[in-house]
């Protein structure tokens, strides 16, 4: 515990946009523009942000579904960009993903046992019997019955399907699971089940999570550390409880203000952001957040703030601090 598993350094992903035919590019979509963070063994990092902030692209980069434009992703000390062939397959074993929609993430014509066993078959040379017994163990781990392996996905409810997706994600001795909004599509009463299941699995197996979501409450519940992303950059990173107690960045404060109360009298700071979430195609100059910031200063439109560690474990990118 506490030992780094995944380290991301100054990661960037820029997509070219524009008419290549005319020989010039009109611009770049800077989906991810220089982010750095660490996920330790057995711990969870929460990544919060709204649409267009780059969290989906970040997850794709970590899953090696896209190659970064710049920066490095180091897994157990090795840069994944240098991995090829068998080593890359090893990486894919160790890092898996659970998607948001339980209805489309499972192949409709495969039995659940086959779905869970697929990564095992692709990565390990095991006998059929061995794969089957591993599948049964996994089903029980996620709170389903072993005899459900022969059923098809449509015979399960949403929450159960998500459990199957989690079982599949853990099937190959996984070290890191990227959870991409795993409970947003589920009924309210089922979310608690899945969150508890994830906590339980982390305790038992020491798996790390990258928990990507827009629900601050769920994220801060499950994660030790939370990072807030805005338009391709990290604006604040802190221990989850501390972030809830003392959010520093104005955007973080706005997110808290906007998150729904858990009862009618819960105090909320009145921060309503004006305008829309800007598009990453044409980010504002200087601090990306300055056009919507209630505390904007002249400096903010000229110079981009750096992510500085203000207190142990708590970093902010804002000219207000120090």
């Amino acid at each position, binding site marked *: 515990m506490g030992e780094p598993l995944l380290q991301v350094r100054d990661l960037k992903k820029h997509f070219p946009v524009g008419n290549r035919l005319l020989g010039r590019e009109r611009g770049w979509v800077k989906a991810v523009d220089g982010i750095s963070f660490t996920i330790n063994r057995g711990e969870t990092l929460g990544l919060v942000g709204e649409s267009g902030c780059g969290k989906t692209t970040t997850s794709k980069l970590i899953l090696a579904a896209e190659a970064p434009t710049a920066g490095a992703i180091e897994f157990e000390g090795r840069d994944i960009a240098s991995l090829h062939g068998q080593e890359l397959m090893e990486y894919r074993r160790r890092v*898996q993903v659970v998607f948001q929609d339980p209805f489309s993430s499972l192949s409709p014509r*495969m039995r659940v046992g086959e779905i869970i066993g697929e990564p095992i078959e692709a990565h390990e040379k095991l006998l059929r019997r061995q794969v089957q017994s591993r599948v049964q163990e996994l089903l029980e781990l996620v709170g389903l019955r072993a005899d459900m392996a022969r059923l098809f996905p449509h015979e399960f409810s949403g929450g159960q399907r998500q459990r199957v997706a989690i079982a599949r994600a853990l099937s190959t001795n996984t070290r890191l699971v990227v959870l991409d909004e795993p409970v947003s599509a589920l009924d309210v009463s089922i979310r608690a089940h899945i969150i508890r299941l994830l906590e339980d699995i982390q305790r038992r197996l020491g798996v790390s999570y990258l928990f990507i979501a827009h629900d601050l409450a769920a994220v801060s519940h499950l994660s030790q550390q939370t990072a807030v992303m805005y338009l391709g950059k990290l604006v604040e990173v802190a221990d989850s409880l501390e972030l809830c107690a003392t959010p520093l960045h104005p955007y973080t404060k706005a997110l808290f203000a906007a998150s729904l109360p858990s009862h009618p009298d819960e105090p909320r700071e009145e921060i309503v952001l004006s305008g829309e979430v800007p598009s990453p195609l044409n980010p504002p100059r200087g601090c990306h957040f300055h056009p919507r910031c209630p505390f904007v200063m002249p400096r903010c439109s000229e110079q981009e703030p750096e992510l500085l560690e203000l207190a142990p474990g708590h970093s902010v990118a804002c000219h207000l601090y120090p």
Partner: protein
Amino acid sequence: MATIPVHATPLGGVSRVARRSYRLVAEVPSIPLLMLSILVLAAVFAPAIAPHGKLTPVKPTPEQCQAKFGMADCPYVDNVPPFWSAGGTLGTPLGTDFMGRDVLSRLMYGARISLVVALTGTLFAGAIGTLLGVLAGYLGKWWDQIIMRITDAWLTLPSLVFAILLSSVRGPGLWNMVLILALVFWSRYSRAVRGEVLALRERDFVKLAEINGIPKLRIIWRHLIPNVMNTVMVLFSLQVGVAVIIEASLSFLGVGVPPPEPSWGLMMAQERESLMEGKWWLAVFPGTCITMLVLSANMLGDWLRVRLDPQLRNR
């Protein structure tokens, strides 16, 4: 509409089993299945249940010979009408043709030909077309370009003319027909399947498999092909009807199954003039069989389409 009071629901005393069977019967397309089963059974069991042979003339009774030729014995009696008309007998219920062969038996044997040719031809067309469609849709880039351009070109060829061309090259014969049908119709599948695959490719479970490092061929086999089967099955049942007609047309034109084999199309061709001469049964019965097969295949295909599309089904 005002509130409608509901009578006591029929659910009350009905057992679960009875309810399930009712559902099954009400939902299943009984008419096409019935028609199809008759044809399939006739085809499969033709040697056992056909009253006479398919090529040999029927041995007539002395009365028939007397009535027709004024002799006590004759090798065959031609153009006997169906049993409900004057001059017909129950021994040849649907009459005999110009060579004295029993029409019913020939229809039964003819079912074999039509079904075999239509089904296997369409099957091969489907297999080729689906495979090419999946490769074009999933692998994209050059695969897509090449396969789709060929498909587009192929689709512009008029099927009957093309079939005639091919058969003049290959010559008549049962298996040549199957080959021709496969070659003519595969392009219809590849177009539709490619479209499906393009959509499927973006679905989460395919992306998940890619992220897991599952090899592409495996993804095609386990994730893509099973999920396009819906579309393929519907296309298949609709194509069977077309294949039957093409086969019948080719045989009619003399470039399909050669005589004396009892292909329905051939039977109609040989009896073209008989229709004018009043011997209607020789052309109408084969025509009815073709109609039955095509109609039931189409209705089945339509039912499948609605059943397999969750949005159209009214559950």
